C-alpha cells in the first residue's frame, strides 16, 4: 500500500536554511568583531560559516511539537509514579544511592550545560551553529528540571536528595563534576563544544545514560527511566552536534587540527575521570545489574569510539591521548572508586555498603583478572570488621589531584598496587596529579588550574564552616546520621525493611 502525500514545496534542507541561516546578517553599525567578541581568540579559523550543516533540521514549531509530546508523556508517568507509591516498586532501596549521586552530581551539570550552550548559542557568528546550540541549551534546562521533578517524590521519603544544588557548590566529591563543567564554561565557545558536545556527549555520555538508564529500568525505577530516556532522545541531537562541530572545524582549516586534537586529548581525559563515579554506580550500586563497567567501556568506548576515531582519521585526527590507560583501568576503576566511597561514607550524602556473596561472585565473574586478587581481600576485611561492629570510616582527609580533583586513588598503569603520583612546578609552587593525563592538562594552562577550589584544602584553610568534620558536614547541609554513613545503619534501610515487611504481611 502506498501512502500518498502532497509534496512539500521546499525540501527540508532548503526550508530549514531559509528559516535559520537567512535570519542573520553582517552588522555594520557595530563591527562584527564587537558583536561576536569571543569566537576568534581560541585560534580556530573559520572561512565559511555557511558551510555548517545541521543534520537535524528542526524548526521551532517542530521542536515544540515533539518536545511537548515528550513532556506530556513524561509528566504523566511522574504523576502516576507518585500517586501509586512507585518508590515501593524498586528492587531495593540501596539502588536509590545511585539516584542521590545523580541528582547531586549530574543534574547540576545539565543546568550548567543549559547556561554554557546559551553562551555558544549567542556567540558564534554562524547562525546555524547558534540555533543548534540554543536548542541544546533549553533541552539541558529541560533535563535539569525534569530530573528535579522526577526525583522530588523520592526526596520525600529518602535522605541525600534534599539539597542538591547547594551540595554541588560545596561537597567535596561534587567538586569533581563541578570543576569539570566550570572548566568547560570558562573556555571559549569552540572548546566548550568540543568538551561537551563531542568529548562528553558523543564519546562518553552513552556510558552514563544507556547502561545506567537501562539499569534503572531493570531495578523498577520507572520515574528515572522515563526522564532518562526522554532526555536521551534529545541527546541524539546533541551528539550529532558534537560530531558535526569537530568535522566543521577540521574541514575549515588545516591549522585547526592541532588545536582540536589538544582539546580532544584534554576533554577525553577529563570526561573519563568524571565517569569514574559512573563505574561504581554500574558495578556496585545497582541491585540488579545490566552490564559491568568493563563491558560498557568495551562496547561504548573501545568499539564505538574506535569506529568514530577511524572515521575522523581522514582529517588527521588521532585517538585521544592516554586512551590506553583508560582501557587498562577498566578492570580496576569501579573497585577503586567504591573502596574510596566506602572509606569516606561518613562524609557523603549517599550510603555505601559491602557487596553480598552473590555480588562478589558477579564481580569475580566480570573481572576475572583483577577482582579476586586485588579487591576481594580488602572487601572481606571490611566485611569481617563490620560484623564485629567495627565499620570502617576513614577519618582523615585525602590528597586531591590538582586537575580532576579526585583523591589519589588511582594506581600506576599496569600496577594496581602502587598509587600513581605525578607532579609539576609552576611559579615556584608544587602541584600534584593523579595521572599523566591530568598533569598534561595542567601544564597546558597552569594559570587556570592553580585557581582550583580543592575542597580538602579549602577545609584546611578554614573556608568550609569550621574546623571539625561535623561543622563541615553541617555546612554541606547534611542531615547527619540520615544522609551519610553505612547503608545498613541508615533510616533508608529501616524504612525499606519496614515497607517490605508490611507488604509481605499484607500479602
Amino acid at each position, binding site marked *: *500500500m*502506498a*501512502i500518498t*502525500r502532497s509534496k*512539500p514545496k521546499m*525540501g*527540508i*534542507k532548503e526550508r530549514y536554511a531559509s528559516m535559520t541561516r537567512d535570519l542573520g546578517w553582517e552588522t555594520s553599525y557595530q563591527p562584527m568583531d564587537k558583536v561576536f567578541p569571543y569566537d576568534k581568540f581560541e585560534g580556530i579559523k573559520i572561512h565559511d560559516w555557511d558551510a555548517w550543516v545541521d*543534520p*537535524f*533540521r*528542526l524548526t521551532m514549531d*517542530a521542536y515544540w511539537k*515533539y518536545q511537548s*509530546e*515528550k513532556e506530556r508523556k513524561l509528566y504523566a508517568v511522574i504523576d502516576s509514579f507518585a500517586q501509586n507509591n512507585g518508590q515501593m516498586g524498586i528492587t531495593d532501596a540501596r539502588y536509590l544511592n545511585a539516584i542521590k549521586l545523580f541528582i547531586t552530581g549530574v543534574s547540576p551539570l545539565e543546568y550548567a550545560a543549559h547556561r554554557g550552550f546559551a553562551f555558544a548559542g549567542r556567540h558564534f557568528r554562524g547562525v546555524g551553529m547558534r540555533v543548534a546550540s540554543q536548542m541544546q541549551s533549553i533541552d539541558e534546562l529541560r533535563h535539569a528540571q525534569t530530573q528535579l521533578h522526577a526525583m522530588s517524590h523520592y526526596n520525600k521519603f529518602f535522605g541525600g536528595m534534599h539539597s542538591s544544588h547547594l551540595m554541588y557548590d560545596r561537597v567535596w566529591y561534587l567538586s569533581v563534576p563541578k570543576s569539570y563543567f566550570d572548566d568547560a564554561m570558562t573556555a571559549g565557545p569552540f572548546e566548550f563544544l568540543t568538551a561537551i558536545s563531542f568529548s562528553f556527549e558523543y564519546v562518553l555520555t*552513552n556510558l552514563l*545514560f*544507556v547502561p545506567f*538508564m*537501562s*539499569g534503572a*529500568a*531493570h531495578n523498577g525505577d520507572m520515574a528515572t*527511566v522515563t526522564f532518562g*530516556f526522554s532526555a*536521551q*532522545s534529545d*541527546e*541524539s*541531537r546533541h*551528539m*550529532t552536534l558534537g*560530531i558535526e562541530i569537530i568535522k566543521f572545524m577540521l574541514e575549515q582549516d588545516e591549522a585547526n587540527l592541532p588545536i582540536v586534537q589538544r582539546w580532544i586529548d584534554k576533554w577525553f581525559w577529563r570526561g573519563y575521570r568524571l565517569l569514574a563515579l559512573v563505574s561504581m554506580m554500574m558495578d556496585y550500586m545497582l541491585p540488579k545489574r*545490566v552490564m559491568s563497567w568493563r563491558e560498557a567501556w568495551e562496547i561504548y568506548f573501545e*568499539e*564505538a569510539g*574506535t*569506529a*568514530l576515531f*577511524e*572515521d575522523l582519521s*581522514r582529517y588527521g585526527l588521532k585517538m585521544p591521548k592516554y586512551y590506553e590507560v583508560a582501557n587498562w583501568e577498566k578492570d580496576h576503576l569501579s573497585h577503586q572508586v567504591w573502596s574510596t566511597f566506602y572509606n569516606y561514607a561518613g562524609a557523603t550524602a549517599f550510603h555505601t555498603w559491602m557487596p553480598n556473596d552473590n555480588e562478589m561472585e558477579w564481580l569475580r565473574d566480570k573481572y576475572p583478572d583483577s577482582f579476586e586478587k586485588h579487591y576481594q581481600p580488602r572487601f572481606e576485611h571490611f566485611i569481617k570488621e563490620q560484623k564485629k561492629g567495627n565499620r570502617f570510616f576513614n577519618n582523615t582527609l585525602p590528597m586531591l589531584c590538582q586537575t580532576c580533583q579526585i583523591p589519589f586513588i588511582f594506581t600506576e598503569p599496569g600496577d594496581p598496587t602502587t598509587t600513581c603520583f605525578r607532579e609539576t612546578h609552576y611559579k615556584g609552587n608544587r602541584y600534584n596529579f593523579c595521572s599523566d593525563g591530568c598533569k598534561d592538562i595542567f601544564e597546558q594552562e597552569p594559570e587556570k588550574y592553580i585557581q582550583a577550589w580543592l575542597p580538602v584544602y579549602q577545609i584546611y584553610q578554614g573556608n568550609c564552616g569550621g574546623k571539625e568534620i561535623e561543622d563541615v558536614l553541617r555546612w554541606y547541609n547534611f542531615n547527619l546520621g540520615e544522609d551519610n554513613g553505612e547503608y545498613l545503619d541508615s533510616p533508608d534501610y529501616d524504612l525499606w525493611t519496614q515497607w517490605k515487611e508490611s507488604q509481605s504481611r499484607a500479602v
Partner: protein
Amino acid sequence: MSRNVSITLLNNEDARPVVQAIEKDNPACIINHLPSLVKVDMAGALRINRQTVEEILGREWNVQDIHLCLVSLSGEVEEEDDFFELSWK
C-alpha cells in the same frame, strides 16, 4: 574493515514500526534487546526509509518523528524528507 554504525531506540510503540522497517530494509542488521531499549548494529551504513515505515504503519510518518523514540546513535547522520541514514565515511 567495515565499521559498525548503531542506533538505539526505545522499546515502545513509537519505535516498533521503525525497528521493523530497519529489519526489512537492512537485512544484515543485528538487533539487540536490552531492558526497555532496542539497539540495532549494522556494518557500514543503516537506512530508515519513510516509505517502509509508512507501509508498516498504514499512515503518514514523518522522518522527524524518529525524535520521539531515538535514544542514541553512532555514525554520521543524513536526514532527508524520505530517509534517515547513518554511515561512516
